[in-house]
């Protein structure tokens, strides 16, 4: 024990062993993607078609109609003239500064990602609320999804599916889905026990309880989760552009590489504008639809 170097230098795995581990894992994954890459791609094909169709629809439709439709949705959701005017002005500015097409690409991407996150996230959240064991399994997975640097899981996705919209979509969904899952779970767990008990006392079965009591009463939390999911999806758009997702992210990436400050700023501001629109509209909608639920007890 004369050699005390193990104290100052961390006793680490042999370089060769480390290499072997890396080789095995990479090799296995590569084999896996060669074997199943096409199957998985085929599985995602309908989503890709929808995504492409939706993006085309947004880009080819004359811009006044798009602004009209978005304006109508904004007003329906929020019933606020102020918000409507703000949204229309920011869309006009975005178009005027030449970012219309990119904005539409991003918009379609975000919309599809959010829809997929909701469709997957709410059932998972419900499952977590119903089973403590499932919650125990899911919580660390969600922690990893949220803390793992996005670039890290870009790698296997790209290895598997190559560069393009679908890998982008998958990485955005992985990054953005945890809030909606977590808050659905939380919302359902926080539902007033007495209201739930009342439903049971009147003979409601599991589904009736879920749809008549738990989901409606968890709605404020679920809406907050959806809102967070949208915001995170927008944040991920720039990273996703690295693997070929078209939209506002690409010019931002280009300006990083070439140090185009103004180009970056404009496109960044367009993302901010989209974020604010999504945020304010979804929050105004949530607030309006839940105004009766305050102070019920």
């Amino acid at each position, binding site marked *: 024990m004369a050699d005390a170097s193990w104290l100052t230098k961390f006793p680490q795995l042999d370089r060769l062993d480390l290499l072997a581990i890396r080789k095995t894992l990479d090799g296995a994954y590569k084999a896996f993607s060669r074997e199943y890459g096409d199957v998985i791609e085929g599985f995602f094909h309908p989503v890709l078609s929808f995504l492409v169709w939706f993006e085309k629809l947004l880009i080819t439709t004359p811009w006044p109609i798009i602004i009209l439709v978005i304006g109508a949705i904004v007003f329906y959701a929020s019933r606020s003239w102020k918000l409507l005017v703000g949204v229309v002005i920011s869309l006009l500015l975005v178009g005027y500064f030449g970012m219309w097409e990119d904005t539409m690409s991003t918009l379609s991407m975000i919309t599809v990602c959010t829809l997929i996150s909701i469709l997957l996230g709410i059932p998972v959240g419900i499952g977590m609320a119903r089973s403590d064991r499932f919650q125990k399994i899911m919580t660390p997975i969600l922690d990893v999804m949220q803390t793992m640097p996005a670039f890290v899981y870009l790698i296997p996705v790209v290895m598997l599916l190559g560069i393009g919209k679908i890998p982008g979509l998958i990485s955005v969904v992985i990054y953005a889905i945890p809030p909606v899952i977590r808050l659905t779970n939380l919302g359902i767990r926080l539902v*007033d026990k*007495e*209201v739930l*008990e*009342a*439903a*049971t*006392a*009147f*003979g*409601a*079965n599991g589904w*009736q309880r879920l749809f*008549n*009591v738990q989901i*409606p*009463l968890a*709605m404020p939390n679920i809406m907050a989760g959806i809102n967070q999911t949208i915001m995170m999806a927008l944040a991920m758009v720039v990273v996703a552009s690295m693997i070929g997702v078209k939209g506002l992210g690409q010019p931002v990436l280009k300006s990083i590489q070439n140090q185009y400050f103004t180009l970056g700023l404009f496109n960044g501001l367009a993302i901010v504008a989209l974020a604010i629109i999504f945020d304010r509209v979804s929050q105004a909608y949530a607030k309006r639809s*839940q105004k*009766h*639920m*305050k*102070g*019920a*007890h």
Partner: protein
Amino acid sequence: MSDTLIEVKGLYKLFGPEPKVHMPLVHEGLSKDEILARTGHTLGLKDINLTIKEGDISVIMGLSGSGKSTLIRHFNRLIEPTEGQILVGGIDVMTLSAKELEEFRRHRMSMVFQRFGLLPHRTVLDNVTFGLTIQGVRKKEANDRAVEWLETVGLAGYENQYPAQLSGGQQQRVGLARALATNADILLMDEAFSALDPLIRSEMQDQLIELQDKLQKTIIFITHDLDEALRLGNNIAILKDGELVQDDKPEEILLNPATDYVEAFVRDVNRARALTVETVMQPQGFRITATTIEGALKQMRAHKDDYAFHVTEDGYQGMLSQESLEEYYQEDKTAALSEVHYEDLEPIAPDAALEAVLPETLASDYPVPVVNEEGDFMGSLSRDALAEILSPDSSSSEGGNDGAKPEEADEENKASTTRHS
């Protein structure tokens, strides 16, 4: 009216992860605290035997932690018992499958909750139709029935409001309408009025009594408030630490408390309000049946008292005193007894609260006659009897326990704090 509808037999509830394992300790008779210390399990209910009669309002009373809310949740199996049987109309609730239990809850029992348990995102109308839509009643019919029930509970016109827009009393009326709308014959009310302020509470109590006269449901009512129990209950069961201490008619609970605990509970009850004339009056065997003054005086002289009540085939006529009878006798001994000969004393009704008849009874030199609605003479209420029943010590002198135990004072404190909170 008085057939047994619900029977609870040997009901035990032990809360904790492994209740069955520790049941032997319970049967050995260990106390709640000992069981908790030795096993970490909480004894919720211990050997409850109870019968509920059809058409009655049966009150289950106890302080918080006494197990009353646990007990009521056993009737519709919101809580599963560890041991015991619950028979409802001859059916053992414990043998029902999940599906059958749902049907049972939909059609036989409905429930009203302390904090109302309304759905905040639904209108009043949609809340009342909740039980009906669960039953599978069509929307249109459910709405019609809900509107009717809302009218019955006095909330017509509030159909499209949301629960948050209503006061507590109104919200509980919605809860009541929701429970009544399912047409279940058994109504469970878990501290239904405890969250309401006193004025609204007594209003709701009146309304419940009024509704019950019409509907004749079987109501199980949980409360921690003895005044409320006495006011509503045909029968009162008192729980303490998961055990049934007394199960009796309200006046029996008041006049003959079974244990020190009940007595402490009963002590600060306003008896003048809680007891009716019927429970305190003395039956009067002696009555004057003659038709003339002469005959009446003869009967009177043969009796020890110097007053008597004149009763004929047509029922109660009036009260006679010996003193004035002697005078009338001097005037005209053959005259028929009539209005003019009676003492000036209004009879009182048997179901009146003592409070209501207090002034006239105390002011009268003679016992006051008690006459029911049909005009039949029931008995009389004397000043002395009234004074005795209203004096604070009367129940302890009957219960025969002297010397205050330290525990007793403690319990009294508990009882009065709950009532004030």
